Structure formats: structure tokens, C-alpha cells
């Protein structure tokens, strides 16, 4: 039983790791070696020319794309956490008329297929003059219901006594929210920020159609531009794929627990 388990694990691990390793190694090969058959694993000679080329090419400014993606994903995560935390707190702790309707409306859109929003949002973003700008990547996707739902669940689980004793000490609602609730919620806020960053970084369809200028692309959208510009230069394409993956993989390595727990909690409590 034990041997069987480790055999299964070993095969699965090979299936998951080896394509990634092969891609990283290919990005350090010469153009010729990258497409050699049978394929080689260890680059000979080892070269960084693919990276030098894609980072400096004028029609595919990968470094600029990297900055764009960083700015968009960071701003989006901040916007999601800020607006969701405020709304979630109202829905978890405050009483007001229409609360049930507002919450039902928000939750009911959790399962609305995103395709229904693509065409009208393109038109709306166009009327706001946001087409071909990073704002189009940052703002509309922050309207998703997941963050509000996720944080509301978390806030409802916090002990009410702490907030009540702060009120007795004369604190107002805003002070209770910023001085007590938010500090207690750091793990949940971090999880939401991470998931939002990852989702925005990896978003594909929307940036492909909303951004047109070469210098305004995000990395994911840029990869398809890179692919059309160099369809057989696999050394360049793999280098592009590596550049597009390093930040998210680093984040994942550093905060793996938060990411995985965020995803698993979304299922059980959802």
C-alpha cells in the first residue's frame, strides 16, 4: 500500500514538474537547440540570449509588459480588498433596510458566467475612454462578488465581544472597523489580496481585446503577441513564459498556505 502510494505520487510529480523544468531549461538554449529533435534537457551552450532579445525588442517590450502587469495586478488587489472589506463589514455587522436584498443580489452574481459581461463591459469601458489603458484592466474586474462574500464569512466568525467592549470604551464604528476588525482579519485580507493579484495577473481574454498598443499589453496578453511575432522561436517564447511566471510562482512559494487555504475555504463554506 505504502509502495503503491509513493509510486503514484512519483508519477504525478513527474507529470507536473518535468514540463515546467523542460520549459525553463529551454529558455536558456540557443534558438537552434530549442527546436532540436530528439530534445536535449541541459542547455549546451548555456545562454541568456533569449532573455536579452525579448527584453529589448521594440515590438515586444516584455519588460514594459512586466511593469504593466505588476501595476495592474497590485492596484486591482488593493481595490478589491479595500472595497470588499468595507462592504463585507456592513453586511456582516450593520443593520439597515434592504440588507437582505443587497446581499442576495451580490451572492446571486457569484455564479453568473463572466461571458455575459464581456460585450457590454467593452462598450461601457469604451464610453469611459478606458480602452487601451490599464484602468480597464484594474477597475471592472474588481466588481466581482467573491471578495465580499469571502470577507463577510470571515467577519461573521470574529468574536463580537471585542467590538462591543470597544464601543463601551467610546470608539465609533469606523474606529472599531480599522483598529479591531481589520487587524484581526489580516490572514483573510492577505488571502484575498493574493487571490486577486493572481487572478488579475493571469487574466487573458479581457486584456487581449481591450488593450491594443504594443506598449500597453499585460504580460499574458503580450505572450500571444510574442507568439504571433516569433511563432517558431521557441527559445524566445519559453523565455517569455518564464518571465510571465516568475512573480506568481515566487508569490506562490512564499505564501502557498494562504493561496491554498483561500481556495479550499471558498469551496467548503461556499
Amino acid at each position: 500500500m505504502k509502495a503503491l502510494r509513493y509510486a503514484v505520487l512519483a508519477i504525478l510529480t513527474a507529470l507536473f514538474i518535468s514540463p515546467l523544468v523542460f520549459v525553463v531549461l529551454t529558455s536558456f538554449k540557443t534558438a537552434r537547440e530549442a527546436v532540436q529533435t530528439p530534445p536535449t534537457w541541459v542547455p549546451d551552450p548555456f545562454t541568456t540570449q533569449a532573455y536579452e532579445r525579448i527584453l529589448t525588442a521594440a515590438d515586444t517590450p516584455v519588460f514594459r509588459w512586466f511593469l504593466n502587469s505588476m501595476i495592474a495586478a497590485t492596484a486591482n488587489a488593493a481595490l478589491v480588498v479595500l472595497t470588499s472589506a468595507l462592504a463585507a463589514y456592513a453586511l456582516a455587522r450593520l443593520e439597515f433596510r434592504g440588507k437582505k436584498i443587497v446581499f442576495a443580489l451580490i451572492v446571486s452574481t457569484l455564479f453568473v458566467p463572466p461571458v455575459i459581461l464581456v460585450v457590454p463591459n467593452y462598450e461601457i469601458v469604451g464610453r469611459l475612454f478606458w480602452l487601451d489603458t490599464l484602468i480597464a484592466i484594474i477597475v471592472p474586474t474588481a466588481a466581482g462578488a467573491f471578495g465580499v462574500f469571502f470577507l463577510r464569512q470571515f467577519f461573521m466568525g470574529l468574536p463580537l465581544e471585542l467590538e462591543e467592549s470597544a464601543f463601551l470604551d467610546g470608539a465609533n464604528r469606523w474606529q472599531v472597523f480599522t483598529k479591531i476588525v481589520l487587524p484581526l482579519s489580516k490572514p483573510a485580507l492577505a488571502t484575498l489580496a493574493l487571490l486577486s493579484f493572481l487572478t488579475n495577473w493571469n487574466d487573458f481574454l479581457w486584456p487581449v481585446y481591450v488593450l491594443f498598443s504594443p506598449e500597453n499589453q499585460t504580460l499574458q496578453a503580450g505572450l500571444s503577441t510574442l507568439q504571433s511575432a516569433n511563432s517558431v522561436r521557441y527559445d524566445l517564447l519559453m523565455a517569455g513564459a518564464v518571465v510571465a511566471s516568475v512573480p506568481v510562482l515566487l508569490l506562490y512559494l512564499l505564501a502557498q498556505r494562504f493561496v491554498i487555504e483561500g481556495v479550499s475555504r471558498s469551496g467548503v463554506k461556499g
Partner: protein
Amino acid sequence: MSATRRAGSLTAWLFLAPYLALFVTFVLVPIVFGLWISLHNWDFTLPGKPFVGLDNYTALLDSDSVSFDPFWNAMQATGIFTLFTVPLLIVVPLAVALVMNQKFRGRDIFRAIYFAPYVLGVAVVGVMWRFLLDRNIGAINSYLGAIGLPDDIAWLSSVPAAWVALIGVTVWWTLGFNSVIYLAGLQDIPRELYEAAKVDGASRWAAFWHITLPSLRPVTMFVTLITVIASANMFGQSFIMTNGAPAQETRTAIFYIAETGLQNFQMGEAAAASWILTLALMLLSVVVFGVFRLRGALEAS
């Protein structure tokens, strides 16, 4: 009086305002606006957007119209993809989660490895697998040849091979995501249930069938629903890996909608197509929901 009731409703609306502004502008309004667009001959680049009633819908549903074949080919592509992806992504991640739910050394490392591809974007996954699956220089064909199998399969430009590639890559990409959700569900099942079954002399298989599966039902339903929605919205894999080839056979419904609406700017027709796809999807979700309710009711009786 409890703290929950102390604040007036003005405070509540102030807390809600920033999110609601986003929600109304980019979720609620678009849902209605999309319906409105679908009733017009709506070209983003032209000033006139004449009202055409249900013409966009009838064009998509009338087999004599020029839009009929491309749209339904794309719907069929999405259907094929969903039909194969969903069962695989329900069963395989459950098996992986069952293995991961046992106590053994290095468990968290394995879990992290299987989840890792999900962190990569669809563009990265697509570009890397297009390379690995290339007919002439790809590593996959080369290794298949090395073990005596055909080494010239056109993974990206012939069917059914392209479907195998698209479905396989998608399973590789999102298996870890579903596994992690199952794993959390498995860890919520009370240990006592298994201990009681053991005392009664139940086999491991019986315990799985009568305890694990029924306890997991809400989680399985959630996984099924999100996988159905994700599969029906497949775009990036076919955009990057096959670009719809061969002919337009792997061009999915979303691919068709994006091209029609955001590239050719026939937004009325694209909006109508997205409503038809959404209705189909809602119907499917209701069926999924019903099946799980029925199974629950059958087991309870």
C-alpha cells in the same frame, strides 16, 4: 442594545458605497445593458445602432442564416470540451485528494506541486504546451516515438488529437485547484464516522461509498458547478494552442463571441450569442443541482 444595531443605516450605506458603485457599473448594469445591445444592430464603431428586435437571436437560431453554422460549430466545440473535461475534473482530483488525505511524509510538498500549474496563467500554459505538443519538434511526439508509438501526431491541428491535447492540458492545469477543494471537504468529515464503521466491520470500500461520498456531496456539487462554468467559458487554451484549428473545429463559443463582438464589432449578435450560451449554462447548472438533490433524497430514504 447590541453593537450590531447601534449604527444608523447611513453608516452602512457609506461602507457599502464604494463596492456598490463598482458592482452596479460593471456587473448589474452590464447584465441588463447586454440584453439591450442584443436587441440592436450594434456596431461599436458606428454612431447609428438601429433597433432590430429579436433579429440577432433568430439569425443565430435559423439554419439558413450565415451566422448559424459558425455559432453552432462553436457551441458544439464548447459542448465537446465540457463533456469530457467535467467528468475528468470531478473524478481525478477526488482520487488525488483521497491520496493526499492520508498521513505521510512530504504530503504538503506534493500538494503544493500539484497545485502549482494553476498559479500559471492560461497564456503561459498554452504557450508552453504548444511547444511541447508541436508536431515536428515537440518533446511529446519525440518521447512517444522513443517508446515505439506514433511520433507524428498533429496534436494542435487535427481532431480528435487536438481535443485530447486541449482537454489533457486543462486537466493538468486545474487538477490541483479541484483537489484542494476536495481535500478541505475530506478533512471536515468527522473521524468518529469512520471509527464507528470500523467497529461495525465495514470495509474501506464500504466506508468510502457510505461515508465519504455522501459527506462530500455539497463539495462535489460545488466542484461540478465551478468546473462546468469554467469549461463552458474556455477560451485561452484554444486561442493560444490551436487557434481554432483544424478549420474552426476547436473554436469555442467564447472565442466566437469575442471575435464577433470585440474584433468584428458585431456586438448585437455577440451579445445575443452570450445570452444563448448563458441560458444553456444556467439550464445545465439547474440539471447538476437537481441531480445532486435527487441523489441526496434517494440516499436519505
